[in-house]
Protein backbone atom coordinates (compact mmCIF):
# COMPACT_ATOMS: atom_id res chain seq x y z
CA UNK A 1 0.00 0.00 0.00
CA UNK A 2 1.38 3.38 -0.93
CA UNK A 3 0.66 6.78 0.57
CA UNK A 4 -1.28 8.46 -2.23
CA UNK A 5 0.34 11.71 -1.16
CA UNK A 6 0.18 14.50 -3.71
CA UNK A 7 3.94 14.59 -3.96
CA UNK A 8 5.61 17.34 -6.02
CA UNK A 9 6.38 16.14 -9.52
CA UNK A 10 10.12 15.94 -10.13
CA UNK A 11 11.57 17.77 -13.10
CA UNK A 12 12.29 15.00 -15.58
CA UNK A 13 15.28 15.44 -17.88
CA UNK A 14 16.67 13.38 -20.75
CA UNK A 15 19.12 11.87 -18.22
CA UNK A 16 16.47 10.83 -15.71
CA UNK A 17 13.53 9.96 -18.00
CA UNK A 18 14.24 6.22 -18.14
CA UNK A 19 14.55 6.07 -14.35
CA UNK A 20 11.16 7.64 -13.74
CA UNK A 21 9.60 5.54 -16.52
CA UNK A 22 10.92 2.34 -14.94
CA UNK A 23 9.60 3.49 -11.56
CA UNK A 24 6.18 4.08 -13.14
CA UNK A 25 6.39 0.46 -14.33
CA UNK A 26 7.19 -0.67 -10.78
CA UNK A 27 10.94 -1.22 -11.21
CA UNK A 28 13.68 0.47 -9.19
CA UNK A 29 16.74 0.95 -11.38
CA UNK A 30 20.34 1.95 -10.80
CA UNK A 31 22.94 3.16 -13.28
CA UNK A 32 25.90 0.91 -14.05
CA UNK A 33 28.99 1.91 -15.97
CA UNK A 34 30.12 -0.64 -18.55
CA UNK A 35 33.61 0.83 -18.52
CA UNK A 36 34.51 0.75 -14.81
CA UNK A 37 31.74 -1.55 -13.61
CA UNK A 38 30.67 0.77 -10.81
CA UNK A 39 27.04 1.45 -9.90
CA UNK A 40 25.78 4.95 -9.20
CA UNK A 41 22.58 6.78 -8.32
CA UNK A 42 21.05 9.22 -9.35
CA UNK A 43 21.38 8.26 -12.99
CA UNK A 44 23.87 10.31 -14.98
CA UNK A 45 24.70 10.06 -18.69
CA UNK A 46 28.37 10.29 -17.74
CA UNK A 47 29.85 8.00 -15.08
CA UNK A 48 30.79 10.05 -11.98
CA UNK A 49 33.74 7.73 -11.31
CA UNK A 50 35.51 7.24 -14.68
CA UNK A 51 33.64 9.80 -16.86
CA UNK A 52 32.70 7.17 -19.43
CA UNK A 53 29.41 7.52 -21.32
CA UNK A 54 28.86 3.74 -21.34
CA UNK A 55 26.00 3.79 -18.83
CA UNK A 56 23.22 1.20 -18.61
CA UNK A 57 20.21 0.98 -16.32
CA UNK A 58 20.13 -2.18 -14.20
CA UNK A 59 17.27 -3.36 -12.01
CA UNK A 60 17.74 -3.03 -8.27
CA UNK A 61 16.41 -5.53 -5.76
CA UNK A 62 14.79 -2.53 -4.08
CA UNK A 63 16.01 -3.90 -0.77
CA UNK A 64 18.11 -1.83 1.57
CA UNK A 65 18.73 -0.47 5.04
CA UNK A 66 18.10 2.88 6.71
CA UNK A 67 21.38 4.80 7.06
CA UNK A 68 19.83 7.78 8.83
CA UNK A 69 16.52 9.59 9.05
CA UNK A 70 14.79 12.69 10.33
CA UNK A 71 11.25 13.24 11.50
CA UNK A 72 10.09 16.47 9.88
CA UNK A 73 7.80 18.54 12.12
CA UNK A 74 7.90 21.83 10.25
CA UNK A 75 7.96 22.33 6.52
CA UNK A 76 7.39 25.18 4.11
CA UNK A 77 6.62 22.76 1.28
CA UNK A 78 2.90 23.15 0.56
CA UNK A 79 2.30 19.52 -0.39
CA UNK A 80 3.77 18.30 2.90
CA UNK A 81 2.30 20.77 5.41
CA UNK A 82 -0.57 18.49 6.37
CA UNK A 83 1.68 15.42 6.46
CA UNK A 84 3.83 16.34 9.48
CA UNK A 85 5.31 14.58 11.26
CA UNK A 86 6.75 12.55 8.41
CA UNK A 87 10.00 10.68 7.91
CA UNK A 88 12.72 11.41 5.38
CA UNK A 89 15.65 9.02 5.26
CA UNK A 90 18.83 7.98 3.58
CA UNK A 91 18.41 4.35 2.47
CA UNK A 92 21.39 2.32 1.29
CA UNK A 93 20.37 -0.20 -1.33
CA UNK A 94 21.93 -3.65 -1.15
CA UNK A 95 23.63 -2.93 -4.51
CA UNK A 96 25.58 -0.07 -2.86
CA UNK A 97 24.20 3.37 -3.67
CA UNK A 98 22.15 5.29 -1.12
CA UNK A 99 19.36 7.74 -1.76
CA UNK A 100 17.10 10.21 0.00
CA UNK A 101 13.57 8.86 0.25
CA UNK A 102 10.43 8.57 2.38
CA UNK A 103 9.78 5.81 4.90
CA UNK A 104 6.11 4.85 4.65
CA UNK A 105 3.74 2.33 6.24
CA UNK A 106 5.56 2.73 9.53
CA UNK A 107 4.88 4.74 12.66
CA UNK A 108 7.35 7.63 12.81
CA UNK A 109 8.54 6.48 16.24
CA UNK A 110 9.25 2.98 14.94
CA UNK A 111 11.81 3.98 12.30
CA UNK A 112 15.35 3.00 13.23
CA UNK A 113 18.80 3.13 11.70
CA UNK A 114 19.75 -0.23 10.11
CA UNK A 115 16.07 -1.14 9.74
CA UNK A 116 15.55 -3.28 6.62
CA UNK A 117 13.28 -1.67 4.03
CA UNK A 118 11.87 -2.52 0.62
CA UNK A 119 10.95 -0.18 -2.21
CA UNK A 120 7.35 0.64 -3.08
CA UNK A 121 6.04 3.13 -5.60
CA UNK A 122 3.82 6.13 -5.07
CA UNK A 123 2.18 6.73 -8.44
CA UNK A 124 1.61 10.44 -8.94
CA UNK A 125 0.64 10.34 -12.64
CA UNK A 126 0.50 7.89 -15.52
CA UNK A 127 4.14 8.63 -16.33
CA UNK A 128 5.69 9.13 -12.92
CA UNK A 129 5.93 7.07 -9.76
CA UNK A 130 8.07 7.93 -6.77
CA UNK A 131 10.15 5.18 -5.12
CA UNK A 132 9.49 5.14 -1.38
CA UNK A 133 10.47 2.55 1.21
CA UNK A 134 8.55 0.53 3.77
CA UNK A 135 9.70 -1.90 6.46
CA UNK A 136 10.66 -5.20 4.81
Amino acid sequence: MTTNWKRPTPRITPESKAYWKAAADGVMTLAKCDNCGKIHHHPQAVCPFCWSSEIKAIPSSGAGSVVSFSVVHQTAVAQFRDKVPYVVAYVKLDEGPQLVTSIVNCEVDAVQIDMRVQVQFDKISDDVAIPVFAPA
Partner: protein
Amino acid sequence: MSNLPAIVGVYEHPLRKAPDYTPLRFIGECAAGALKDAGLEPGDIDGLATAGETMAVNYIAEYLNLRPRWFDSTAIGGSSFISHILHAADAIKQGHARAVLIVYGSTARSSAAALGSSSRDEVNDPSGVADADAFYTPYGVNLVSQYAMVARRHMHQYGTTHEQLAEIAVTCRTHAALNPLARFRDPITVEDVIASRPIAAPLHMLDCCVITDGGGAVIVASPEVARNCAKKPVRVLGGSEATTHREGGQHDLLDVAARQSGPAAFAQTGLKHSEIDLCMIYDSFTITALTTLEGLGFCKPGEGGPFVEGGRLGINGELPMNPDGGALSNHHPGRRGIFLAIEATRQLRAECGPRQVKDAKTALCHGTGGYLSDRHSGVTMMLGA
Protein backbone atom coordinates in the same frame (compact mmCIF):
# COMPACT_ATOMS: atom_id res chain seq x y z
CA MET B 1 54.71 38.24 7.47
CA SER B 2 53.80 41.90 7.05
CA ASN B 3 53.92 41.34 3.29
CA LEU B 4 50.60 39.49 3.42
CA PRO B 5 47.30 41.00 2.26
CA ALA B 6 45.20 42.05 5.21
CA ILE B 7 41.65 42.79 6.28
CA VAL B 8 41.69 46.55 6.77
CA GLY B 9 38.00 47.33 7.19
CA VAL B 10 34.94 45.51 8.48
CA TYR B 11 31.34 46.43 9.16
CA GLU B 12 28.45 44.43 10.54
CA HIS B 13 25.16 46.23 10.07
CA PRO B 14 23.54 46.72 13.49
CA LEU B 15 19.99 45.98 12.34
CA ARG B 16 18.51 42.50 12.66
CA LYS B 17 15.07 43.44 11.35
CA ALA B 18 14.58 46.06 8.66
CA PRO B 19 11.31 45.76 6.74
CA ASP B 20 11.99 49.01 4.89
CA TYR B 21 15.40 47.93 3.66
CA THR B 22 16.35 46.28 0.39
CA PRO B 23 19.36 43.94 0.18
CA LEU B 24 21.09 46.63 -1.89
CA ARG B 25 20.63 49.25 0.81
CA PHE B 26 22.25 46.89 3.29
CA ILE B 27 25.06 46.39 0.79
CA GLY B 28 25.50 50.11 0.30
CA GLU B 29 25.51 50.95 4.01
CA CYS B 30 27.84 48.06 4.81
CA ALA B 31 30.25 49.11 2.05
CA ALA B 32 30.28 52.63 3.48
CA GLY B 33 30.77 51.30 7.01
CA ALA B 34 33.73 49.12 6.08
CA LEU B 35 35.25 51.93 4.03
CA LYS B 36 35.03 54.28 7.00
CA ASP B 37 36.46 51.61 9.31
CA ALA B 38 39.44 51.30 6.96
CA GLY B 39 39.83 55.03 6.41
CA LEU B 40 39.57 54.61 2.63
CA GLU B 41 37.64 56.39 -0.12
CA PRO B 42 35.35 54.77 -2.73
CA GLY B 43 38.00 55.44 -5.36
CA ASP B 44 40.46 53.21 -3.48
CA ILE B 45 38.34 50.10 -4.12
CA ASP B 46 39.41 48.27 -7.28
CA GLY B 47 38.05 44.79 -6.55
CA LEU B 48 34.56 43.50 -5.72
CA ALA B 49 33.22 40.18 -4.51
CA THR B 50 29.79 38.93 -3.49
CA ALA B 51 27.84 35.69 -3.47
CA GLY B 52 24.60 36.86 -5.00
CA GLU B 53 22.65 35.45 -7.87
CA THR B 54 23.63 35.62 -11.52
CA MET B 55 25.24 38.96 -12.38
CA ALA B 56 25.07 40.21 -8.79
CA VAL B 57 28.56 41.65 -9.19
CA ASN B 58 27.35 43.78 -12.11
CA TYR B 59 24.35 45.13 -10.20
CA ILE B 60 26.35 45.89 -7.06
CA ALA B 61 29.13 47.56 -9.05
CA GLU B 62 26.45 49.82 -10.55
CA TYR B 63 24.81 50.53 -7.18
CA LEU B 64 28.16 51.57 -5.71
CA ASN B 65 29.38 53.13 -8.97
CA LEU B 66 32.50 50.96 -8.91
CA ARG B 67 34.57 49.98 -11.93
CA PRO B 68 36.50 47.05 -10.40
CA ARG B 69 39.39 45.51 -12.31
CA TRP B 70 39.00 42.22 -10.42
CA PHE B 71 35.86 40.50 -9.19
CA ASP B 72 34.61 37.19 -7.81
CA SER B 73 31.07 35.89 -7.53
CA THR B 74 31.82 32.44 -6.15
CA ALA B 75 28.44 31.32 -4.78
CA ILE B 76 28.78 28.17 -2.70
CA GLY B 77 26.27 29.03 0.01
CA GLY B 78 27.13 30.46 3.39
CA SER B 79 30.84 29.77 3.07
CA SER B 80 31.17 31.95 -0.05
CA PHE B 81 32.58 35.02 1.65
CA ILE B 82 35.45 33.11 3.25
CA SER B 83 36.32 31.94 -0.25
CA HIS B 84 36.13 35.54 -1.49
CA ILE B 85 38.63 36.68 1.15
CA LEU B 86 41.07 33.90 0.23
CA HIS B 87 40.63 34.61 -3.49
CA ALA B 88 41.03 38.35 -2.94
CA ALA B 89 44.23 37.84 -0.96
CA ASP B 90 45.66 35.74 -3.81
CA ALA B 91 44.54 38.29 -6.41
CA ILE B 92 46.19 41.09 -4.44
CA LYS B 93 49.42 39.08 -4.21
CA GLN B 94 49.31 38.73 -8.00
CA GLY B 95 48.76 42.44 -8.46
CA HIS B 96 45.23 42.16 -9.86
CA ALA B 97 43.81 44.50 -7.22
CA ARG B 98 44.91 46.66 -4.28
CA ALA B 99 41.72 46.92 -2.22
CA VAL B 100 38.84 44.45 -2.58
CA LEU B 101 35.36 45.04 -1.17
CA ILE B 102 33.49 41.88 -0.15
CA VAL B 103 29.90 42.66 0.63
CA TYR B 104 26.60 41.02 1.53
CA GLY B 105 23.04 42.09 2.28
CA SER B 106 19.82 40.18 2.85
CA THR B 107 16.25 40.76 3.96
CA ALA B 108 15.57 37.11 4.73
CA ARG B 109 13.65 37.85 7.93
CA SER B 110 11.38 40.59 6.62
CA SER B 111 10.64 38.71 3.44
CA ALA B 112 9.74 35.68 5.60
CA ALA B 113 12.15 33.45 3.76
CA ALA B 114 11.75 29.88 4.95
CA LEU B 115 15.49 29.37 4.91
CA GLY B 116 15.58 25.96 6.47
CA SER B 117 12.19 24.44 5.93
CA SER B 118 11.60 25.04 2.23
CA SER B 119 12.32 22.53 -0.49
CA ARG B 120 15.20 22.50 -2.88
CA ASP B 121 13.88 24.70 -5.63
CA GLU B 122 14.83 22.92 -8.82
CA VAL B 123 12.29 24.93 -10.75
CA ASN B 124 14.15 28.17 -10.15
CA ASP B 125 17.55 26.77 -11.03
CA PRO B 126 18.68 29.20 -13.74
CA SER B 127 21.79 27.30 -14.75
CA GLY B 128 20.22 23.90 -15.33
CA VAL B 129 22.86 22.09 -13.28
CA ALA B 130 20.64 21.32 -10.30
CA ASP B 131 18.90 18.37 -11.97
CA ALA B 132 19.76 16.21 -8.97
CA ASP B 133 17.28 18.20 -6.87
CA ALA B 134 14.52 16.31 -8.66
CA PHE B 135 15.50 13.32 -6.54
CA TYR B 136 14.69 15.22 -3.33
CA THR B 137 11.60 17.30 -4.01
CA PRO B 138 9.12 14.36 -4.07
CA TYR B 139 10.08 13.50 -0.50
CA GLY B 140 9.60 16.80 1.32
CA VAL B 141 13.20 16.77 2.47
CA ASN B 142 14.32 20.24 3.52
CA LEU B 143 17.55 21.78 4.68
CA VAL B 144 16.99 21.19 8.40
CA SER B 145 16.14 17.54 7.86
CA GLN B 146 19.32 17.01 5.86
CA TYR B 147 21.43 18.36 8.72
CA ALA B 148 19.28 16.37 11.15
CA MET B 149 20.22 13.16 9.35
CA VAL B 150 23.88 13.90 10.11
CA ALA B 151 22.97 14.46 13.76
CA ARG B 152 21.03 11.19 13.92
CA ARG B 153 23.85 9.27 12.24
CA HIS B 154 26.43 10.81 14.58
CA MET B 155 24.34 9.84 17.60
CA HIS B 156 23.95 6.30 16.28
CA GLN B 157 27.59 5.79 15.32
CA TYR B 158 29.30 7.50 18.25
CA GLY B 159 26.75 7.77 21.05
CA THR B 160 26.62 11.54 20.80
CA THR B 161 23.72 12.94 22.84
CA HIS B 162 21.28 15.76 22.28
CA GLU B 163 22.56 17.23 25.55
CA GLN B 164 26.04 17.49 24.01
CA LEU B 165 24.69 19.23 20.91
CA ALA B 166 22.71 21.54 23.16
CA GLU B 167 25.94 22.64 24.89
CA ILE B 168 26.87 24.40 21.66
CA ALA B 169 23.61 26.37 21.59
CA VAL B 170 23.97 27.26 25.27
CA THR B 171 27.54 28.48 24.75
CA CYS B 172 26.52 30.68 21.82
CA ARG B 173 23.65 32.16 23.83
CA THR B 174 25.98 32.88 26.75
CA HIS B 175 28.19 34.81 24.31
CA ALA B 176 25.24 36.58 22.72
CA ALA B 177 24.30 37.96 26.13
CA LEU B 178 27.55 39.95 25.92
CA ASN B 179 26.77 41.27 22.42
CA PRO B 180 24.28 44.15 22.45
CA LEU B 181 23.43 43.58 18.78
CA ALA B 182 22.61 39.87 19.06
CA ARG B 183 19.10 38.79 18.09
CA PHE B 184 18.59 36.65 21.22
CA ARG B 185 20.37 37.40 24.50
CA ASP B 186 18.36 35.73 27.27
CA PRO B 187 20.23 32.80 28.82
CA ILE B 188 19.13 29.27 27.93
CA THR B 189 19.94 25.88 29.41
CA VAL B 190 20.59 22.45 27.91
CA GLU B 191 17.11 21.51 29.14
CA ASP B 192 15.61 24.48 27.25
CA VAL B 193 17.18 23.29 23.99
CA ILE B 194 15.84 19.77 24.43
CA ALA B 195 12.41 21.04 25.49
CA SER B 196 12.13 23.40 22.50
CA ARG B 197 9.85 22.10 19.77
CA PRO B 198 11.26 19.66 17.23
CA ILE B 199 11.78 21.13 13.75
CA ALA B 200 13.33 18.12 12.06
CA ALA B 201 14.15 15.59 14.77
CA PRO B 202 16.60 15.12 16.27
CA LEU B 203 17.14 18.87 15.74
CA HIS B 204 14.92 21.14 17.80
CA MET B 205 14.26 24.85 17.44
CA LEU B 206 17.17 25.92 19.64
CA ASP B 207 19.51 23.67 17.63
CA CYS B 208 18.74 25.91 14.63
CA CYS B 209 20.17 29.29 13.70
CA VAL B 210 18.16 32.47 13.96
CA ILE B 211 16.78 34.19 10.86
CA THR B 212 17.60 37.88 10.54
CA ASP B 213 17.83 40.71 8.05
CA GLY B 214 21.23 42.25 7.75
CA GLY B 215 24.48 42.72 5.97
CA GLY B 216 28.19 42.95 6.32
CA ALA B 217 31.31 44.03 4.48
CA VAL B 218 35.02 43.28 4.57
CA ILE B 219 37.83 45.09 2.78
CA VAL B 220 40.98 43.14 1.95
CA ALA B 221 43.96 45.23 0.87
CA SER B 222 47.60 45.00 -0.11
CA PRO B 223 50.26 45.55 2.57
CA GLU B 224 50.99 48.95 0.98
CA VAL B 225 47.36 50.08 1.28
CA ALA B 226 47.05 48.49 4.74
CA ARG B 227 49.96 50.54 6.08
CA ASN B 228 47.96 53.76 5.68
CA CYS B 229 44.60 52.46 6.93
CA ALA B 230 42.89 53.63 10.09
CA LYS B 231 43.01 50.39 12.08
CA LYS B 232 45.58 47.70 12.70
CA PRO B 233 45.54 45.32 9.71
CA VAL B 234 44.55 41.69 10.29
CA ARG B 235 46.61 39.50 8.02
CA VAL B 236 45.09 36.77 5.85
CA LEU B 237 47.42 33.90 6.75
CA GLY B 238 45.92 31.40 4.32
CA GLY B 239 43.31 28.71 4.01
CA SER B 240 41.73 26.06 1.86
CA GLU B 241 38.46 25.19 0.17
CA ALA B 242 36.58 21.94 -0.27
CA THR B 243 33.34 20.64 -1.63
CA THR B 244 31.88 17.26 -0.91
CA HIS B 245 28.78 15.53 -2.18
CA ARG B 246 27.01 12.23 -2.67
CA GLU B 247 29.87 10.61 -4.59
CA GLY B 248 27.50 8.81 -6.90
CA GLY B 249 25.53 7.55 -3.89
CA GLN B 250 28.55 6.05 -2.10
CA HIS B 251 29.29 8.79 0.45
CA ASP B 252 29.65 8.76 4.21
CA LEU B 253 27.10 11.17 5.72
CA LEU B 254 29.63 12.25 8.34
CA ASP B 255 32.39 13.07 5.84
CA VAL B 256 32.06 16.85 6.12
CA ALA B 257 34.01 19.20 3.86
CA ALA B 258 36.00 20.49 6.86
CA ARG B 259 37.81 17.15 6.94
CA GLN B 260 39.46 18.20 3.66
CA SER B 261 39.73 21.99 3.99
CA GLY B 262 40.83 21.98 7.64
CA PRO B 263 43.98 19.84 7.43
CA ALA B 264 44.87 21.56 4.13
CA ALA B 265 44.57 24.99 5.75
CA PHE B 266 46.74 23.98 8.71
CA ALA B 267 49.32 22.54 6.30
CA GLN B 268 49.31 25.65 4.12
CA THR B 269 49.69 28.11 6.98
CA GLY B 270 52.04 25.91 9.02
CA LEU B 271 49.91 26.60 12.10
CA LYS B 272 49.26 24.08 14.85
CA HIS B 273 45.86 23.60 16.50
CA SER B 274 47.32 24.80 19.79
CA GLU B 275 48.12 28.15 18.14
CA ILE B 276 44.46 28.95 17.39
CA ASP B 277 43.23 31.45 19.99
CA LEU B 278 39.64 31.52 18.83
CA CYS B 279 37.51 29.98 16.15
CA MET B 280 34.54 31.28 14.21
CA ILE B 281 32.63 28.18 13.16
CA TYR B 282 29.53 28.36 10.97
CA ASP B 283 26.84 27.10 13.34
CA SER B 284 23.81 26.91 11.09
CA PHE B 285 22.80 24.08 13.40
CA THR B 286 24.45 22.65 16.50
CA ILE B 287 25.49 19.57 14.54
CA THR B 288 27.24 21.74 11.93
CA ALA B 289 29.59 23.16 14.56
CA LEU B 290 30.21 19.77 16.17
CA THR B 291 31.13 17.96 12.96
CA THR B 292 33.19 20.95 11.78
CA LEU B 293 35.30 20.95 14.96
CA GLU B 294 35.95 17.25 14.36
CA GLY B 295 36.69 17.78 10.67
CA LEU B 296 39.14 20.56 11.43
CA GLY B 297 41.03 18.17 13.69
CA PHE B 298 40.42 19.84 17.07
CA CYS B 299 39.24 16.39 18.11
CA LYS B 300 38.87 13.04 16.35
CA PRO B 301 35.77 12.06 14.34
CA GLY B 302 33.22 10.86 16.86
CA GLU B 303 34.75 12.73 19.80
CA GLY B 304 32.89 15.98 19.17
CA GLY B 305 30.25 15.27 21.81
CA PRO B 306 32.60 15.07 24.80
CA PHE B 307 34.80 17.78 23.24
CA VAL B 308 32.12 20.49 23.36
CA GLU B 309 31.22 19.73 26.98
CA GLY B 310 32.52 21.48 30.05
CA GLY B 311 32.74 25.00 28.73
CA ARG B 312 35.63 24.32 26.35
CA LEU B 313 34.10 26.61 23.70
CA GLY B 314 33.39 29.49 26.08
CA ILE B 315 35.11 32.86 25.81
CA ASN B 316 37.42 31.84 28.66
CA GLY B 317 37.60 28.21 27.57
CA GLU B 318 40.35 26.26 25.87
CA LEU B 319 38.97 26.96 22.37
CA PRO B 320 36.67 30.00 22.38
CA MET B 321 34.08 29.67 19.62
CA ASN B 322 31.74 32.30 18.19
CA PRO B 323 32.13 34.99 20.86
CA ASP B 324 29.54 37.14 19.01
CA GLY B 325 26.84 34.55 19.69
CA GLY B 326 27.06 32.80 16.33
CA ALA B 327 24.29 32.01 13.93
CA LEU B 328 22.51 30.22 16.75
CA SER B 329 21.89 33.42 18.74
CA ASN B 330 23.37 36.49 17.05
CA HIS B 331 22.89 36.73 13.32
CA HIS B 332 21.97 34.65 10.29
CA PRO B 333 20.45 36.38 7.27
CA GLY B 334 21.01 33.31 5.10
CA ARG B 335 24.72 33.30 4.29
CA ARG B 336 26.66 33.89 7.45
CA GLY B 337 30.22 33.49 6.20
CA ILE B 338 31.05 37.19 6.10
CA PHE B 339 30.21 37.64 9.80
CA LEU B 340 32.76 34.97 10.74
CA ALA B 341 35.52 37.10 9.25
CA ILE B 342 34.10 40.33 10.69
CA GLU B 343 34.00 39.06 14.27
CA ALA B 344 37.41 37.36 13.94
CA THR B 345 38.86 40.68 12.75
CA ARG B 346 37.32 42.66 15.62
CA GLN B 347 38.60 40.06 18.11
CA LEU B 348 42.12 40.20 16.69
CA ARG B 349 41.99 43.99 16.97
CA ALA B 350 40.92 43.56 20.62
CA GLU B 351 37.89 45.83 20.22
CA CYS B 352 35.18 43.48 21.51
CA GLY B 353 34.65 44.76 25.04
CA PRO B 354 33.01 42.26 27.41
CA ARG B 355 33.09 39.45 24.86
CA GLN B 356 36.78 39.92 24.02
CA VAL B 357 38.84 36.73 23.90
CA LYS B 358 41.96 37.56 25.91
CA ASP B 359 45.23 37.86 23.99
CA ALA B 360 43.70 36.69 20.72
CA LYS B 361 46.45 36.68 18.09
CA THR B 362 45.36 33.95 15.66
CA ALA B 363 41.82 33.09 14.58
CA LEU B 364 40.34 30.32 12.48
CA CYS B 365 37.17 30.87 10.42
CA HIS B 366 35.29 28.00 8.84
CA GLY B 367 32.27 28.45 6.63
CA THR B 368 29.87 25.69 5.62
CA GLY B 369 27.53 26.17 2.69
CA GLY B 370 24.84 23.91 1.30
CA TYR B 371 23.47 20.70 2.70
CA LEU B 372 25.41 18.70 5.26
CA SER B 373 24.88 14.95 4.61
CA ASP B 374 24.86 15.83 0.94
CA ARG B 375 26.56 18.32 -1.38
CA HIS B 376 28.12 21.15 0.56
CA SER B 377 31.20 23.29 0.67
CA GLY B 378 33.62 24.06 3.46
CA VAL B 379 36.17 26.85 3.54
CA THR B 380 38.79 27.25 6.27
CA MET B 381 40.78 30.45 6.72
CA MET B 382 43.30 31.63 9.29
CA LEU B 383 43.73 35.27 10.27
CA GLY B 384 46.55 36.78 12.31
CA ALA B 385 46.82 39.96 14.35
